[in-house]
């Protein structure tokens, strides 16, 4: 038993038992971040806050939602939207946040790619981040099932059909996933469980891993400079804040994060109140009808790029292409053969690679929404070929990259 003396304040009492002062030092006041960063570095905090918004709004929706195929649609569109005080607000917030979180994820991902923040000790940050992307995707998909509208039902039908794996015709597997021949009560209940319990737990665990993976390599900076954190921290603590290359998480990084967050929140809540159709597709305001597929069916915008990759090819090659596209981003730390940690603008051919990739996934996204006919199909096919060409070429263009 350790020796405990009488504490003189509540703070001291807690510190004796939980070491809150040490925690504050290690996690906030002396958690060193490079000073040479821009607002894109705040996207992590924006994501954490948005996830918090999703959790809180989800908790309130959960108080009234009914995961029953006969009741689900009306529990959302009648009870929550009309009867519950502020129910409409939780629903709008949840739907818009679920869509906007992917915008921030993509910005966060492409920031990492641009600045090379996935190599030289940061591979686990990248991999845990990609795992978060995959888990968020599953969370979004399972959540979309819940209102049991036309899009919910038919997206459920189509995505679970993917698991028949083309010519392998694994229909038994598809039925097992659904718990039925078609998406029905069993399907809705298990995706409800995934959405409300299992996947959020997985996300929380992965966030912990993601933060943990950051500690040893430290946060990157705009120039990819390798910083001697000990030395720079010493300068800061000695009072030489202007010349130190690092800042403390609290209050320095936090105050900038808060400002970036506040700008984000203005944008976010503007969408919540006045511009939300992109996140609440009108087709999902029709109750699910197993006897009628809507004339236009498409996934949410953040899945469109990989949905488009599925489309130009016949059944089996399409599934292979789609499968590769899901995992290829995981491999960037290993496909990028250059040791340079630097912004893409200083990496010659990689800079071209980056901007072509960005434009290409946007083209794939837009084509994924358009009907697969005529010029749209052709552009989609070209963009898909470019996508794979980019990944194949990455090792080659980075192998002999000039040292920065």
């Amino acid at each position, binding site marked *: 038993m350790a020796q405990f003396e009488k504490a003189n304040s509540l703070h001291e009492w807690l510190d004796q038992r939980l070491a809150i002062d040490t925690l504050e030092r290690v996690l906030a006041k002396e958690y060193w971040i490079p000073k040479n960063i821009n607002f894109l570095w705040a996207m992590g905090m924006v994501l954490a806050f948005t996830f918090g918004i999703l959790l809180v709004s989800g908790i309130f929706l959960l108080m009234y939602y009914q995961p029953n195929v006969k009741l689900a649609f009306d529990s959302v569109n009648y009870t929550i*939207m009309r009867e519950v005080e502020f129910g409409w607000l939780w629903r709008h917030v949840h739907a818009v946040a679920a869509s906007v979180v992917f915008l921030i994820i993509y*910005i966060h991902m492409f920031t990492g790619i641009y600045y090379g923040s996935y190599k030289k000790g940061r591979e686990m940050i990248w991999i845990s981040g990609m795992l978060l992307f995959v888990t968020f995707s599953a969370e979004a998909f399972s959540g979309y099932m819940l209102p049991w509208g036309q899009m919910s039902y038919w997206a459920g039908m189509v995505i679970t059909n993917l698991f028949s794996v083309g010519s392998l015709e694994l229909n038994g597997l598809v039925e097992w996933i659904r718990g039925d021949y078609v998406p029905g009560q069993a399907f809705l209940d298990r995706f409800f469980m995934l959405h409300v319990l299992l996947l959020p737990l997985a996300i929380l665990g992965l966030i912990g891993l993601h933060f943990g993976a950051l500690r040893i390599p430290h946060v990157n900076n705009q120039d990819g400079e390798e910083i001697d954190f000990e030395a720079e921290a010493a300068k800061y603590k000695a009072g030489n*804040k202007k010349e130190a290359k690092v800042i403390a998480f609290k209050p320095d990084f936090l*105050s900038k994060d808060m400002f970036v967050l506040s700008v984000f*929140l*203005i944008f976010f809540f503007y969408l919540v*109140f*006045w511009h939300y159709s992109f996140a609440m597709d009108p087709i999902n305001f029709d109750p699910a009808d197993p006897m009628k597929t809507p004339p236009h069916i498409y996934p949410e915008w953040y899945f*469109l790029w990989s949905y488009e990759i599925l489309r130009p090819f016949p059944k089996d090659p399409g599934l292979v292409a789609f499968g590769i596209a899901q995992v290829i981003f995981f491999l960037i730390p290993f496909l990028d053969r250059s040791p340079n940690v630097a912004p893409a603008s200083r990496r010659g051919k990689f800079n071209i690679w980056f901007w072509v990739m960005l434009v290409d996934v*946007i083209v794939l996204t837009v084509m994924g929404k358009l009907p697969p006919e005529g010029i749209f199909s052709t552009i989609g096919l070209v963009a898909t070929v470019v996508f794979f060409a980019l990944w194949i070429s990455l090792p080659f263009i980075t192998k002999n990259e000039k040292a920065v």
Partner: protein
Amino acid sequence: MKELKILAVVVFFTLLTYWGVEPYAHSVMHKHVESKDFKYEDLKPLKKRGDAKRGAETFVNAGCTGCHGVQAANMPAPMDPISAAASFGVNPPDLSNAGALYDEKFLAALIKNPAHALKVEHKFTEGKQHPMPGFYGVGGDMEQEVADIVAYLKSISKNIEEITPKMAFEDACGRCHAVHYEKWTQIGEKPKFKHKKDELLFDAKVLDYQDYLTKYMGKLPPDLSMYIRSRGEHYISTFMEDPQALLPGTSMPRVGVNEEAAEKVIEYLQDSGDLKRDERDSVGVIVMFYLFVFAFLAYLWKQSIWKELH
């Protein structure tokens, strides 16, 4: 400065993606039909000035009350809704407010040739007759008689300002479309029942009516509870005006409402599917004000800290 450039790049690519995925893609997927302001230009204007007193007589002599009730003139409907649907496919409307809700050209055209005015001639081919017979006059000048009937209908109806959105909807749409969020069935508002058996008997009557309606229309007209959000105001308005322009071959008749009646129908549908829209606007204003102050204070705090770091 550099950060503003980065922000501009991020905003540019975001807006580009948004444009492609939303406004552009939707314009490709859905044809946009312009509103014709409920002018009904394909219908001829009335040729004569109607006399309401004469019209009251003509109305009775023409046999309209054989199918139509007129509550405003103390003439009840000759049949209950289910028997009417069994005979005609759909319950003939009460005409008390027809004069206020529907365009007069439409009413005149409807009296003379229902299938034509309703734009459902494509459903009544090969000898099939519309359940409402056309009017061929009661012995005098047919055009005058039609004008008189229209004038009579206008004289007995409430003023358009007195007609609530609910009344407009029930009149123009309610005999085919249920709105269960407003407890509206095709045979009337569903009452509260103490005993389960009474409730089930009522539900069974609704189902009977819907069976007759489905046989007549080919498909059960959809429940409109959430249509304001699944189709939107513009689509519903232009659809009422001319269903064939948006869904060629549909069984839905042109409704014939005038512009004010159409607005009331839309308001009813908004109250059903988007009840909290006003609260959303007002809470939104408060939240945006809060957030602008929040951003301003965040900026001041950030600046006070980073002054020492740059």
